[in-house]
C-alpha cells in the first residue's frame, strides 16, 4: 500500500507543543509510507487540495491525517480523499490535538506520542478495505415528544412542510409550562394570547396526530425507520365522544382535588379539563380522587354527560407509531424549594414559588388575576423576590444558572406594581443575567420606572413576625445585614431536568449530562442533533433557556428533520458487521447478544446454518465481533486485524 501522511500544525494549536516537522520525518521511515508533509491548516480548502494533489502525484492508496479529533473532521477529510478518487474508508486520523498538544506542554513527550499515534494509524490503515454504503428508504413521518412551546413549534413547522406529525404529550393538554405563565418578558405580552393560537393550530392541522396523556413505552429501529410504542393512559372518558362541555366537571362531587395547573393554589374536580384553553379540550378522571374509583359508587358524571362519554372500564392502550425521525422536546421541571429549610417553603403559606406567582397574576388563575396572599387572601403591600433558589447553588446539586429567573423576577415585580400601584417590591439577587435583546433595558425599567429595590445579596433566613414575614438578607454592597418585612415572598425557583428525562433518554439511546439534560452532538455546531442519528432536541430538555430560544430550537429541529426527509433514501454506514461464512461455526452467540436483532440464521444447502447480518439494521457496535469465538463475524473498519495492528505497533 502507498500511504501518505499529513501532519497538521493547526496554526499553533498543535505546532506549539508538538514538533510536527519531526513527526513527518520520523513516520517517513515507516514501511509503505511514501509521502509525508506538514501543513498549517490541513482542514482548510487549500489543505484539502494539498491532500488531493498528493494522492494523484504520489499515487497514494491510503491517507493518514494527524490533526484534531476524528469526531471533528473525519467526515471532512473522508470527502476530500473521495474527491481524489480514493474510497473514503482508506483514510485514518491520528488525534494529536485534543489527545496530545492540548493536554500536555512537554514538547518532547508530545512529539514522541504523536509519532506513535501516527504509526498506529498507519498500522491500522494497512488493513483498511474500501467499503461501500447501502441505502434504505425513509419513512417520512416525524414524532415530536413533548407538547410545550418548543414541541408545538417543531410540530407546526413540520406539518406546514407537509409532513405527517405525531405529537405525544404526557399531560392531558399541550401547552407546557408556557400555558401556565401570565405574561412574557420583555414585552409583557400575554402568554396564552400568543401560545393559544398555536395550540389551536395543532388541533386543526389534519396531518398532526395528537396523543395527549400518553407516554413513550419503548423505541426501536434507527434513523429513517423508528417504531415507537406509545402508552395512551386511560382517561376514563371517550375523547372521541367528549365535547368538552364541562358539565361533568361542574357536577362532580369530589371537590378537594389540588389543581395541578394552578400549582396547588386552588382545587379542581376529580373529573376535569385542566384549563379553559386546553387542547384537546377533553375531560379526564383523576382516579385517586374519583369517588367512583375510591368508594365504588357515585357515577354522577356518567349520568350527566350529554355525550355519554364516560368509560369507567377504560384501560391503558399501547399503540405503535412508525416514524423516520424523532424530535425530543420534553421541557423541564422546577426545583423543589423545600430543600431550603431556612426559607420555610411549605411551612409558611405566603412563601411561594415563581410559577405559583404566575398563576396568581394570571386572570385565569386561582384568584382571577388579583394578587392575594394564599394564607389570608389579603392584598400584599411588600413583596420580596429571592433569586437563585435552586440555581448556582452547589450545595443543592444545582451549580448551573437557570437563565430565566432574573428576567421573570423583573417581569413579576413590574406586574406587581401594575396590579397594586402602592406596593413595593424587593429583589435579592447575586448577579443580574440579562444578555438578550431588550432584556437588560427591561431590568433597568423595573428599577428606574417601577422603583423595584434591588438588593445585592442572598437571603439567609425567613421567619414570621405577626402575620408578616421577615426576610433577613445581606446587602453585600454596603456590607450590612438587611431585614425586609414582607407580606409575600416569591422564591425564583430554578429549572431542573424533567422528572423522567433519564428514563426517556435510555429508551431513545441518547445521552444526558449529570443533571439530566439531554446532550447535543456538539455544543456549538450541532446544537439540536443528538449522538443518535434521526433524533433531535428542542427546548429546555437540552438545557435551561427562555421562550424565544426554545421556539428557535423547535424550528431548528424541524429544519433538520426536513433536511433529512428531503431525500427518499439514506445511506447506511458500511461500518457494520460482516460474516465470513466458512469460519462461522453456527454457535449463535452473535444472535444471542446483538442488541438490535440485526443477525439472523441463514440456511445453506444440507441444512447447514450460518449467521447473517441484516446490514440496514446493524448499528455497528461490534458486540458480536467481541463475542464470536472463531472471529468469523468482523466489524468492518474496526476488525480484529485493525485493532491488533494498533496494539502490536505499540507493544511489539
Amino acid at each position, binding site marked *: 500500500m502507498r500511504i501518505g501522511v499529513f501532519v497538521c500544525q493547526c496554526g499553533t494549536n498543535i505546532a506549539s507543543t508538538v514538533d510536527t516537522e519531526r513527526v513527518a520525518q520520523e513516520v517517513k521511515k515507516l514501511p509503505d509510507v511514501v509521502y509525508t508533509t506538514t501543513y498549517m491548516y490541513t482542514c482548510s480548502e487549500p489543505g484539502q487540495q494539498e491532500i488531493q494533489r498528493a494522492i494523484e502525484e504520489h499515487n497514494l492508496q491510503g491517507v493518514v491525517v494527524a490533526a484534531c479529533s476524528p469526531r471533528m473532521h473525519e467526515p471532512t477529510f473522508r470527502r476530500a480523499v473521495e474527491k481524489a478518487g480514493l474510497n473514503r474508508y482508506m483514510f485514518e486520523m491520528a488525534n494529536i490535538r485534543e489527545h496530545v498538544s492540548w493536554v500536555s506542554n512537554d514538547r518532547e513527550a508530545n512529539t514522541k506520542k504523536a509519532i506513535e499515534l501516527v504509526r498506529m494509524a498507519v498500522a491500522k490503515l494497512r488493513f483498511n478495505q474500501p467499503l461501500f454504503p447501502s441505502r434504505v428508504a425513509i419513512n417520512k413521518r416525524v414524532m415530536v415528544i413533548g407538547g410545550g412551546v418548543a414541541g408545538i413549534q417543531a410540530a407546526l413547522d413540520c406539518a406546514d412542510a407537509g409532513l405527517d406529525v405525531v405529537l405525544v404529550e404526557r399531560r392531558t393538554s399541550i401547552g407546557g409550562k408556557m400555558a401556565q405563565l401570565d405574561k412574557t418578558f420583555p414585552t409583557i405580552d400575554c402568554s396564552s394570547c400568543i401560545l393559544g393560537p398555536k395550540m389551536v393550530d395543532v388541533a386543526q392541522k389534519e396531518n398532526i396526530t395528537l396523543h395527549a396523556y400518553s407516554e413513550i413505552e419503548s423505541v426501536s429501529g434507527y434513523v429513517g425507520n423508528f417504531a415507537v410504542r406509545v402508552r395512551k393512559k386511560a382517561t376514563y372518558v371517550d375523547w372521541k365522544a367528549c365535547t368538552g362541555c364541562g358539565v361533568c366537571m361542574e357536577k362532580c362531587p369530589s371537590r378537594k382535588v389540588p389543581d395541578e395547573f394552578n400549582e396547588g393554589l386552588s382545587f379542581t374536580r376529580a373529573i376535569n379539563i385542566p384549563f379553559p384553553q386546553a387542547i384537546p379540550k377533553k375531560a379526564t378522571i383523576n382516579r385517586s380522587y374519583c369517588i367512583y374509583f375510591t368508594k365504588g359508587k357515585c357515577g354522577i358524571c356518567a349520568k350527566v354527560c350529554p355525550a355519554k362519554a364516560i368509560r369507567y372500564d377504560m384501560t391503558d392502550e399501547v399503540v405503535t407509531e412508525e416514524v423516520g425521525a424523532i424530535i425530543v422536546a420534553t421541557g423541564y421541571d422546577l426545583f423543589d424549594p423545600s430543600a*431550603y*429549610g431556612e426559607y420555610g417553603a411549605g411551612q409558611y403559606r405566603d412563601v411561594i414559588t415563581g410559577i405559583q406567582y404566575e398563576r396568581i397574576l394570571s386572570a385565569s388563575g386561582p384568584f382571577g388575576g388579583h394578587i392575594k396572599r394564599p394564607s389570608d387572601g389579603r392584598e400584599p403591600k411588600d413583596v420580596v423576590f429571592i433569586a437563585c433558589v435552586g440555581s448556582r447553588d452547589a450545595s443543592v446539586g444545582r451549580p448551573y444558572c437557570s437563565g430565566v429567573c432574573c428576567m421573570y423576577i423583573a417581569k413579576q415585580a413590574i406586574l406587581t406594581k401594575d396590579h397594586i400601584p402602592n406596593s413595593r417590591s424587593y429583589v435579592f439577587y447575586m448577579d443580574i443575567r440579562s444578555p438578550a435583546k431588550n432584556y437588560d433595558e427591561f431590568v433597568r425599567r423595573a428599577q428606574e420606572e417601577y422603583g423595584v429595590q434591588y438588593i445585592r445579596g442572598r437571603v439567609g433566613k425567613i421567619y*414570621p413576625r405577626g402575620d408578616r414575614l421577615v426576610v433577613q438578607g445581606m446587602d453585600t454592597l454596603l456590607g450590612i445585614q438587611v431585614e425586609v418585612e414582607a407580606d409575600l415572598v416569591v422564591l425564583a425557583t430554578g429549572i431542573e431536568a424533567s422528572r423522567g428525562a433519564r428514563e426517556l433518554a435510555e429508551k431513545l439511546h441518547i445521552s444526558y449530562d449529570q443533571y439530566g439534560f439531554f446532550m447535543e452532538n456538539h455544543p456549538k455546531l450541532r446544537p439540536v442533533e443528538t449522538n443518535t442519528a434521526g433524533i433531535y432536541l428542542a427546548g429546555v430538555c437540552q438545557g435551561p433557556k427562555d421562550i424565544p430560544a426554545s421556539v428557535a430550537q423547535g424550528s431548528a429541529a424541524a429544519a433538520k428533520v426536513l433536511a433529512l426527509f428531503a431525500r427518499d433514501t439514506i445511506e447506511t454506514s458500511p461500518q457494520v458487521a460482516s460474516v465470513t461464512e466458512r469460519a462461522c461455526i453456527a454457535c449463535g452467540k452473535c444472535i444471542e447478544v446483538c442488541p438490535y436483532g440485526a443477525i439472523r440464521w441463514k440456511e445453506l444447502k444440507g441444512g447447514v446454518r450460518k449467521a447473517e447480518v441484516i446490514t440496514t439494521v446493524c448499528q455497528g457496535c461490534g458486540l458480536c465481533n467481541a463475542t464470536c469465538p472463531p472471529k468469523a463475524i468482523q466489524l468492518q473498519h474496526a476488525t480484529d486485524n485493525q485493532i491488533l495492528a494498533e496494539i502490536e505497533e505499540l507493544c511489539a
Partner: protein
Amino acid sequence: MKDNFSRTVAYYPGCSVEGTAKEFDESTREIFRVLNVALREIPDWNCCGSTPSHIYDPLLSAAISGRNLAIAERMGFYEVMTPCPGCLKALKGSIEVFNNPLKRKDLLNILDMPFYGRIKAVSVVQFLVEDVGIEEIERCVLFPLEGITIVPYYGCLLTRPPKSAQFDDPEQPTSLDRILEAIGATVPHFPFKTECCGATYGVVRKDIVGRLTGRILEMALDLGADAIAVACPLCQQNLDLRQEQIERYRGRSFKISVPYITQLIGLSFGIDPKKLGWHRLAADPQKLLTRFDKLSKKRPTEPPTIR
C-alpha cells in the same frame, strides 16, 4: 453489678453539668433509668477542652477529648453519649483528627494512650431518637403533658453543620418536636429552632445576647408557649439564667420556663420534679408545674415495664 438494663451506653457528662447544668445530668439519668438504658459514666473523665483548647490548637483539643474516648473504648464501648452539644463537638473533632492520616500519628503521640478511633459520639437527643426511639418514649409516658404548649429550641450545634452532625435536618429539625408530641405537649412551629442564642457572649457582650436570646424568648411568648424545651447547657444558661438580664435589656417581662427536654420527658414519665432538678431552674417553673398538675390525667395504660 447485676445488669437488668436492656442496653448500656458510655456517658460523658461534661463540666457544665457539674455546675450550671446539673439538672440536665440529673434528669438524663432519671429518664434513662425508666427507659431501661444503663449509663456508664466514663470514669475519671476530664474536660473536653471546649473552644479555648480548640483555638489554641485543634490537635491539643483532640488529645484532651481523646483521653475520654480512649477510656470509653477501653471499657469496650462503641458509642459515647453526652448531654452537652459543645462537648459533642469536641469529641467528634477528636475522631475527625484521628481519621486525618496527616495528623493521626501526632495525636497518638501526644495522647500517649491506646486509641483506635472506632467510637462514635452522639448527643442525648440523637440517642433518644435513634437508639431508644420515639415510640419507646411514648410507651413510657404516664402523665401526658396535655394542654401545655412547648416550643423546641435546638440551638446551633445539635444538628449542624450537617456534615459532622449526621443527624436530623440542619434547618428544619424535627426530633425535639417529635419527642414533645410523643409526651403529649402541643408543639407549634418555631421559626427560631436553630437561631443562635448568643453563646458565650453572655459574659462579655450582654448586648448581643440580649438581642439574640431576646428575640427567641419573644417569639416563644408570641406563640403562646408555656415553656421552651432546650438541649444545650449554654442555651439554657442564656435563656433561663440570664432571662432577667434580658428582660431589663428588652424592657419586656418574659417569665417563661426553660427546662431541658429530659426534664420534660421525666415529668411525663411521672418522676418527681425535684429528682429531675426542676427546682434548680432560674425562671420559676412553678406556674408550669401547677398547670401540669391540673391538666394532666394519668394515662390509663399499663405502666412502663422493666424488661
